[in-house]
């Protein structure tokens, strides 16, 4: 029942919720519930990169992990290639993981320090029983070449590689089973800027050559603009804006998206950009008792009384461009967003 129809999305997440039990506030009292992911829906299309952007605590990593079924899903569904992953268990789930692989943020702690580089890349092939031992060896060689490592480096241990090379090793390991989707959880944020460009170029090249699909988690708008085809912006467990790359970056609509873009320091922007920056005050509220109105209201520069009372729904304002804000309006096909004028100044 392998659905390889190109019009259907590769990964389809519907109304996903992940809640964790927190600490008890006292003896006999119920445990607090952390609403890490609270009703998130998105699709990853074949051969494209979907980026999920947000601050720490926005639930972007939890979303990525629950897609891989590495954290327990509270409610909602995850369909991959037409298969419902939500309730798969045991061998069936393991079988699906062949098609879903993960690249972690920290290239230091995500590799076993006692395993040789070649073995690290070989392990998923052995565990998931892909090919004969000869084919596996050949595959490892091919992967080393693909990610820009030398074949003779297979005998080295992780500590003998630099940060960028280790991230290449991570990418090679993720690619080993020819997965259809690779989830990248902030793969470049721990890397130096010069090395970051190397890894980003590598990911783009893999996408071009193999039509690879990526789910890319990041908090850096400049990196996301370079890598993504589609984008979701998350805030406190919910999606606040969803669009294609071109639509989003030419005109972000949600005040939070605008603030995120304005926060990135750029070479050309300099002090003028810093002076016109849209500033967010303080930290996001606690996901234990999220505000009942718009979750961003407390930090929003364009907040109005309605925002604190009523939660805005994610709605499509332009075909393909969804936003969850009361004050993004459409009149005579003209879209108006709360921070339009300030956005142009602040970029």
């Amino acid at each position, binding site marked *: 029942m392998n659905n390889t129809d190109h019009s259907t999305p590769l990964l389809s997440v519907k109304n996903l919720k992940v809640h964790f039990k927190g600490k008890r506030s006292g003896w006999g009292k119920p445990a607090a519930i952390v609403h890490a992911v609270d009703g998130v829906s998105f699709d990853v299309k074949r051969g494209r990169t979907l980026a999920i952007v947000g601050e*720490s605590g926005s639930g972007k990593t939890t979303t990525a992990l629950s897609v891989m079924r590495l954290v327990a899903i509270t409610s909602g569904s995850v369909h991959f290639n037409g298969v419902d992953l939500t309730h798969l268990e045991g061998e069936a789930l393991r079988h699906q993981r062949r098609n879903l692989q993960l690249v972690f943020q920290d290239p230091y702690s995500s590799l076993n320090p006692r395993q040789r580089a070649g073995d690290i890349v070989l392990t998923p092939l052995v565990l998931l029983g892909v090919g004969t031992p000869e084919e596996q060896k050949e595959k490892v060689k091919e992967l080393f070449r693909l990610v820009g490592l030398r074949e003779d480096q297979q005998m080295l241990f992780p500590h003998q590689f630099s940060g960028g090379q280790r991230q290449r090793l991570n990418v090679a390991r993720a690619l080993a089973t020819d997965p259809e989707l690779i989830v990248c959880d902030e793969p470049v944020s721990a890397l130096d800027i010069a090395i970051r460009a190397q890894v980003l170029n590598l990911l783009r090249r893999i996408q071009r050559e193999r039509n690879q699909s990526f789910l890319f988690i990041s908090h850096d*708008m400049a*990196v996301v603009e370079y890598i993504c085809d589609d984008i979701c912006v998350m805030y406190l467990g919910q999606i606040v804006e969803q669009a294609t790359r071109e639509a989003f970056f030419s005109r972000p609509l949600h005040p939070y998206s605008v603030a995120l873009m304005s*926060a*990135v320091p750029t070479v*050309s922007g*300099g002090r003028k950009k*810093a002076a016109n920056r849209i500033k967010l005050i*303080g930290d996001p509220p606690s996901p234990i008792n999220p505000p009942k109105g718009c979750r961003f209201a407390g930090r929003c520069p364009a907040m109005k009384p309605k925002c604190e009372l009523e939660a805005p729904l994610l709605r499509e304002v332009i075909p393909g461009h969804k936003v969850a804000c009361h004050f993004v309006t459409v009149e005579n096909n003209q879209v108006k967003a709360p921070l339009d004028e300030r956005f142009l100044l602040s970029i």
Partner: protein
Amino acid sequence: MILQTHLAQEPLLNVKNLTVAFKGRQGAAPVLNDISFVVYAGETLCLVGESGCGKSMTALAIMRLIPEPGEITQGSIELSGQNLAQFSINDVRKIRGNKISMIFQEPMTALNPVYTVGDQISEPLRLHQGLTKSEARTRTIEILKSVEIPVPEQRIDEFPHQLSGGMRQRVMIAMAMACNPDVLIADEPTTALDVTVQAQIFDLLREQQQRGTAIILITHDMGAVSEMSDRVVVMYGGRVVEEGLTTEILDKPAHPYTQGLIACLPELDPNPTFDRPDLPEIPGVVPSVWERGESCPFADRCDRVMAKCREAFPPSFQTGLTQKVACWLFEGQV
């Protein structure tokens, strides 16, 4: 404007021919090699380079915090005419946290988890300014207020683990600024933080600078350089390869390494194009201390390398008003 004030001024901090070496079984490894730069009062200077270039080691050398078995083997660090490199450890203690203080990269590991925020901020006040306990407490609340910590009266008695990452970094800044130092060294203060919080921290640093503190900001992000600094020192492989006013360096970077650092940063473009060309990359990695000889340390990664580059490290050539570059490409051109 900046230039005129500089020409008229004596530097506040003057680092001259600083060399720091670590002694090991294989001999002495020079992590800093003949570093010279100056910091003027009230300016922001950025030290730029990748990890392993010696930026943090320079900061530690100025603070006299170089870990064993490293030591300053040559050169001087003059703060208002006094050579810190020659100070005894007792004299250094009088300067640290008083005239010069430092903010570290990881606020969680830099704060002591078993003391309250208030205890940690009031320590330099009581030590250097001799305030009593209650005076120090009042002053600490004022300082916490100035770094925009909400409800400082309550936060003062909390422990670091009760604060968010951004808040911890504010506490670090509060602690560093407690005695109004002449120089504040910020070693990648925002790498562990979100971009939105980074913007808040940069605002705070800018405020401190406007109050007259000179800031040495260590970073690898050219965007941060453009936003924060008056002047830039680019480091590579334990050496200074280029320096000058920020405008000079960003408008016409001379050293191939500086050019690479600027080019490989993805820029936020409000008109994204469909076809994305590959980002320019600097191939390879920073050489280890054992691989650096007398040659230019960037030679192996440079696309304009010449035979001469592998023979000797170039002297500095003046290429602009204040711009100096250590690269053989500019020999005889200026």
